[in-house]
């Protein structure tokens, strides 16, 4: 085990034990237990002492043992009404998890039948042969795909598209770096556009649901897609400014055929229908998590998606999200989150400063940590600010949620910030300094834009 992991293990254990031996005034017994779990999870997630999805399961496990009615601690003499243990374990099948499951099945089936590649060829065609428009095209395609598929898988697929492009460019052309960077950046940005685009969105939406705030698929898109589009264009400008193309013409090789087997066609229809039902949720009102069961059912009953494919789904990502949701539940139910935010006098902060604070913390944290972990740690605190009346009710809660989720996705400074960044660096096509410079600019503009949206746009549509 490495030194960092040892440090994490020791700090995590200290964090776990600390609330058990120290008594905080104003915090209930259950609150102390929840704090033990919170501190342990925070440290383990930060140091990656154990795999992050494993920390999530540990969170659920400890909640069942320490905080549930079936657990080992007798709360009968306290104010805390222990939750049934099913409440903690059912986070693994939370509606948002089912929504993601539907998304994963669609995405993996798309990969299986090369639908992602076919879409890429189709969507890239109108962008001609000028390098700057090709880069714009690559970014748009990447963003659209990563709004519905995993950012990582989208990046990996697009890397196979740009390798031949870069190979045909002159070795000294600065635009090689723009081409290599535009993919992970567009994938990170595209993830914010829909609820299923990236896991932090799930954690935030689930936390809002817990407060009784339903977020329709179409409403999220209404809030977040405009900002994704603006950020794509911003990123495009920044990359072209820093790495201007040296040539006028680039050739794209868009060979390849749309698969036309029975199963492939079933996938195309299912994909189209599901996405259509998702984005029109505001019109028909059928919840997106219910719609999500449809592709799972259709693709498996038709054997377009078989047992082997089911086994290969990224289950650990669902665990990771579930742990984040569960952590929020215990922090809310035991009063821990409220206690934590009440120890700071927020009144001196203006409303906008509060949003900015959460945005900055989220952006900074998720540059170093997993985006989902960042959202999981911040959202319970943000939400309790809203419930304790420091910011304005439902609208305030919604906006804090959006600020946390979106800022987490705008963190793309370092190779470790997101898996798409790591993939781009690993190709050897660019250096870390290129990523740091443009990633910082884009992150800061993103944060500013989120704050601008929370003043001039969201208050009027939430």
């Amino acid at each position, binding site marked *: 085990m490495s030194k960092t992991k040892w440090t994490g293990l020791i700090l995590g254990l200290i964090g776990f034990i600390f609330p058990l031996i120290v008594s905080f005034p104003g915090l209930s017994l259950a609150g102390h237990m929840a704090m033990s779990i919170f501190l342990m999870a925070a440290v383990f997630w930060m140091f990656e002492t154990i795999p992050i999805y494993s920390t999530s399961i540990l969170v659920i496990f400890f909640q069942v043992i320490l905080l549930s009615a079936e657990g080992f601690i007798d709360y009968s003499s306290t104010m805390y009404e222990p939750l049934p243990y099913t409440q903690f374990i059912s986070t693994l099948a939370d509606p948002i998890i089912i929504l993601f499951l539907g998304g994963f099945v669609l995405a993996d089936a798309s990969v299986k039948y090369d639908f992602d590649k076919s879409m890429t060829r189709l969507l890239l065609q109108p962008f001609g042969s000028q390098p700057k428009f090709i880069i714009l095209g690559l970014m748009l395609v990447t963003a659209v795909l990563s709004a519905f598929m995993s950012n*990582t898988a989208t990046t990996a697929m697009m890397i196979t598209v740009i390798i031949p492009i870069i190979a045909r460019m002159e070795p000294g052309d600065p635009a090689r770096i723009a081409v290599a960077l535009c993919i992970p950046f567009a994938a990170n940005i595209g993830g914010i556009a829909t609820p299923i685009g990236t896991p932090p969105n799930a954690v935030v939406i689930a936390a809002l649901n817990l407060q009784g705030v339903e977020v329709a698929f179409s409403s999220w898109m209404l809030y977040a897609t405009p900002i994704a589009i603006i950020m794509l264009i911003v990123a495009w400008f920044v990359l072209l400014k820093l790495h201007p193309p040296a040539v006028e013409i680039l050739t794209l090789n868009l060979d390849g055929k749309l698969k036309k087997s029975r199963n492939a066609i079933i996938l195309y229809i299912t994909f189209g229908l599901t996405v259509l039902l998702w984005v029109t949720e505001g019109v028909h009102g059928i919840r997106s998590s219910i719609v999500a069961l449809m592709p799972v059912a259709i693709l498996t009953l038709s054997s377009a998606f078989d047992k082997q494919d089911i086994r290969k789904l*990224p289950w650990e*990502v669902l665990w*990771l999200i579930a742990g984040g949701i569960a952590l929020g539940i215990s922090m809310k139910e035991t009063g821990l989150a409220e206690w934590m935010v009440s120890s700071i006098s927020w009144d001196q902060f203006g409303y906008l400063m509060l949003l900015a604070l959460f945005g900055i913390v989220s952006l900074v944290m998720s540059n170093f940590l997993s985006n989902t972990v960042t959202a999981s740690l911040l959202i319970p605190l943000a939400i309790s600010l809203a419930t304790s009346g420091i910011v304005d009710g439902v609208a305030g809660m919604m906006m804090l949620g959006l600020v946390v989720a979106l800022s987490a996705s705008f963190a793309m400074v370092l190779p470790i910030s997101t*898996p798409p960044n790591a993939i781009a660096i*690993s*190709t050897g096509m660019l250096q870390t300094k290129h990523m740091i410079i443009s990633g910082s600019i884009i992150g800061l503009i993103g944060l500013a834009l989120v704050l601008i949206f929370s003043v001039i746009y969201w208050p009027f549509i939430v």
Partner: protein
Amino acid sequence: MEQKIYILVVEDEPDVLDSIVRDILSFEEFFPIEMADAAEEARDLIQELLDNDHQIGLILCDHVLPGDNGVELLVEMQKNEATSQTRKVLITGQAGLQETVRAVNEADLKHYISKPWQKEELVGIVRELLTDYVLHHVKNPLPYMQVLNSERIAEFIRKGGGPSDQ
């Protein structure tokens, strides 16, 4: 100590050994190259690497060697669990049909390169075989992406191998 994936080159003529190693030097940073001039020395080297928890990803082996010949060494490696997955290449001018067939059947020979070889050919074969090895035996292939076939590694990640969203 960090586990590494080694390339082993077995060749008895010093000039030829040098020129093989020179041609594949671009892999050295990620896949350290070890050399031996006889099967006996190669055996000791393999044992030493395995004892230190390293793996042997690829062996480029001449056939005619002092003592045991190359094909014999490869067959022996195939029988050993720790080296059965090593990608095996004969690089020779003098292996007869019978010996070569034995290498294919009993040592799962991945490639036969006849001397003299072209540098690009050798580098290409080494890159593909190491990519094979890494995709089958390494949990996270990303660190090797830039020296290997990056399209194949990207395709592997697209299909759900390696990292996922977090």
